[in-house]
């Protein structure tokens, strides 16, 4: 063996030793798997939840923000004052906040962001959040005054959404491919179809996060997801797509399973304008034909909380109305007979790709068959679902999870895809939006829940669970999902 070879061998050994040395310290990077890849990275112009999962609180921050327990806390706004009549919000911004491109974040950026979101031609997916904003004024570089046309008890909550994050006019042009925010992580790299990498922002205004880098990996196929997790190719699966595999992870000491709740009300959406579903007796019959527990057991392997209205059970204002639409096939058959459908009828059931919809839909079709309703299953891809069901309103029944937080307001929109046109609901929502007193709001929310439950607008099935899986050493993950987010600032590895 020549000297040269010996030297290179020695250096290779030394290199190996140094790798082992760093391996002994706590890991400082993490790989998080998600099912869907974001279409782009601008949370202010698309509804795709996958965008928020990557960028919310990591790259972009808003004036307020959600915590893992659903509470709303100050974000870029240090504090605020609300005028007596509840229409003027004066936000005091954090000092020394910079965007990732080095420019300073000040009141001008807040004005730009809010004006952009509430503009007539705004591409924001949740424009309703900003509807009440009358004007945004820059008082001084760190103070901004927002005037509402009428009091809105939800305003601080609305500002916490990923759709309301603060962006800079300097970098807005390329936001979709090169997002520049104020968060603790900067955008690193995007390998289309595979992964997105974020890197710690050394100039972050708040506390430095424990992680130096994070990779979001996109694995859409449930079988591949299972294999990747089992092979420890990924450290965390944000929301695991196959509930049937959870028991295996629970039994394995290498992993921890975090079963929580999302804001996803999973419902049997019903086209309220389309006969025979314009008849409340038919809708009530649907509701009584459905056995929620069988759907939860069969489609979700037991994970999920039954709901009787369009509201998240973990919310303090939730009213348990599952009794209104309890499983009662005989009553369902009688209601159908009253409505003139003794022989039942034929209808269609559009099912988007997630397993809760495909499997849940098969079970629902079987349950409807028991009361004489023949529902033809039509499996559709997301694009087709959005086009024909959501936009085109050309459907009878569909199974879908509504994952936006506190979205009961959709029942006051008669042009929404389930086409529920109720003056009562519209007036109630108007009163609710104008109410700021927490107790009064809670009462009104209860009334709204009862109203849609008694009108049997849709079949209310279950609250979609968040099924998180992580390696045993990962700490600080959100158990619940008050909004789609993977809050990297809180995540660390145990020693």
């Amino acid at each position: 063996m020549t000297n040269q070879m010996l030297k290179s061998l020695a250096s290779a050994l030394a290199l190996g030793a140094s790798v082992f040395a760093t391996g002994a310290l706590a890991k400082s990077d993490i790989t998080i798997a998600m099912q869907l890849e974001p279409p782009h990275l601008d949370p202010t112009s698309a509804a795709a939840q996958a965008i928020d999962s990557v960028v919310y609180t990591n790259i972009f921050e808003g004036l307020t923000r959600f915590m893992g327990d659903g509470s709303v806390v100050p974000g870029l706004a240090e504090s605020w004052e609300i005028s007596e009549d509840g229409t003027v919000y004066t936000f005091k911004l954090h000092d020394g906040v910079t965007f990732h491109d080095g420019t300073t974040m000040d009141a001008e950026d807040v004005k730009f962001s809010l004006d952009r979101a509430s503009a007539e031609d705004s591409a924001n997916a949740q424009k309703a959040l900003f509807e009440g904003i009358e004007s945004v004024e820059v008082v001084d570089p760190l103070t901004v005054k927002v005037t509402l046309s009428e009091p809105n008890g939800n305003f601080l909550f609305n500002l916490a959404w990923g759709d309301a994050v603060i962006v800079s006019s300097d970098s807005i042009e390329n936001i979709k491919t090169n997002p520049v925010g104020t968060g603790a992580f900067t955008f690193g790299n995007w390998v289309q179809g595979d992964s997105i990498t974020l890197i710690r922002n050394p100039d972050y205004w708040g506390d430095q996060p424990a992680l130096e880098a994070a990779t979001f990996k996109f694995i859409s196929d449930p079988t591949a997801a299972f294999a990747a997790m089992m092979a420890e190719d990924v450290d965390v699966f944000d929301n695991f797509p196959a509930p049937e595999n959870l028991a295996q992870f629970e039994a394995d000491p290498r992993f921890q399973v975090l079963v929580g709740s999302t804001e996803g009300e999973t419902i049997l959406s019903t086209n309220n304008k389309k006969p025979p579903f314009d008849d409340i007796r038919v809708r009530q019959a649907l509701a009584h034909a459905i056995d929620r527990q069988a759907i939860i057991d069969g489609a979700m392997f037991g994970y999920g909380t039954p709901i009787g209205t369009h509201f998240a059970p973990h919310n303090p204002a939730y009213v348990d109305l599952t009794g209104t639409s309890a499983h009662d096939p005989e009553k369902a058959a009688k209601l159908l007979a009253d409505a003139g459908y003794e022989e039942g009828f034929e209808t269609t059931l559009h099912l988007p790709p997630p397993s809760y919809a495909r499997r849940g839909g098969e079970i629902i079709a079987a349950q409807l068959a028991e009361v004489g309703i023949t529902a033809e299953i039509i499996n559709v891809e997301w694009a087709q679902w959005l086009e024909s069901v959501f936009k085109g309103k050309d459907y009878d029944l569909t199974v879908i999870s509504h994952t936006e937080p506190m979205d009961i307001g959709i029942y006051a929109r008669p042009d929404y895809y389930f086409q529920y046109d109720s003056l009562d609901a519209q007036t109630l929502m108007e009163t609710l939006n104008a109410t700021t007193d927490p107790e009064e709001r809670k009462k009104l929310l209860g009334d709204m829940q009862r109203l849609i439950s008694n009108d049997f607008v849709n079949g209310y099935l279950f609250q979609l669970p968040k099924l998180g899986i992580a390696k045993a050493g990962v700490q600080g993950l959100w158990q619940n999902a008050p909004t789609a987010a993977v809050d990297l600032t809180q995540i660390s590895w145990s020693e």
Partner: protein
Amino acid sequence: MSRNLILGAVLSSLILLAALVSFVWTPYDYAALDIPNKLQPPNAQHWFGTDHFGRDMFSMIMVGARTSIAVALVAVGIGMALGVPLGLTAAARKGSWLDEVIMRGNDLVFAFPSLVIAILITAVFGAGAINAIIAIGIFNIPVFARITRGAALSLWEREFILAARVSGKGAARISAEHILPNVANLLIVQGTIQFSLGILAEAGLSYVGLGAQPPTPSWGRMLADAQTMVSFAPHLALIPGLAIIVTVLGLNLLGDGLRDWLDPRIRVARA
């Protein structure tokens, strides 16, 4: 008769029998959900166990056989009904522009990857058994057209055809009365092979969700549904997988055996 032929015939008739019996009897209602009894391994009550909704797998396999056979049978039927006349015409008009058009058209269809086009057809016209049949059927046409033309061409050179022409019969009559009976053996053998390919194609299409739609059971979809559960309920994938293997193996052995049995040259050699 060869061992292959007998084994092939037994396996094929087993599946055919299951499909036929399913019209009058299955152990359980194949569509009845029984969620508390889901994912049972094979046992005395459920011979093939139950699936993730507690449905009886044995009943589903029986009805699934029906779906597979129906799709493959009609698809082969389409292929024969259109392909054979095309092949006969091309052979009768050998070298003419008609021959060229037919055979180049065949080449064109052959050139496409069949399953990909089948996916395209079902994607455009919607998923379902009918569209799967049409998609698979279209790709059977050139197979039969080619094989018919090839066999017919050599027959046209034979003396008994010359005799028929001398006696004044036209090309159409000769094709129907003399050529077709003499290529029938070949078509039966090819039909058996195409039938097994049709079963595989149906399983492939329904595996990706483009075949028969739920609640109609289909072997391919049973496999797809089983995917995430293989690690703790292997029977969910093994049983439909075995059903497909048995059917395709049976039909291939049958086709092989039939060819040996029906081919006069081999028969003479054996005698």
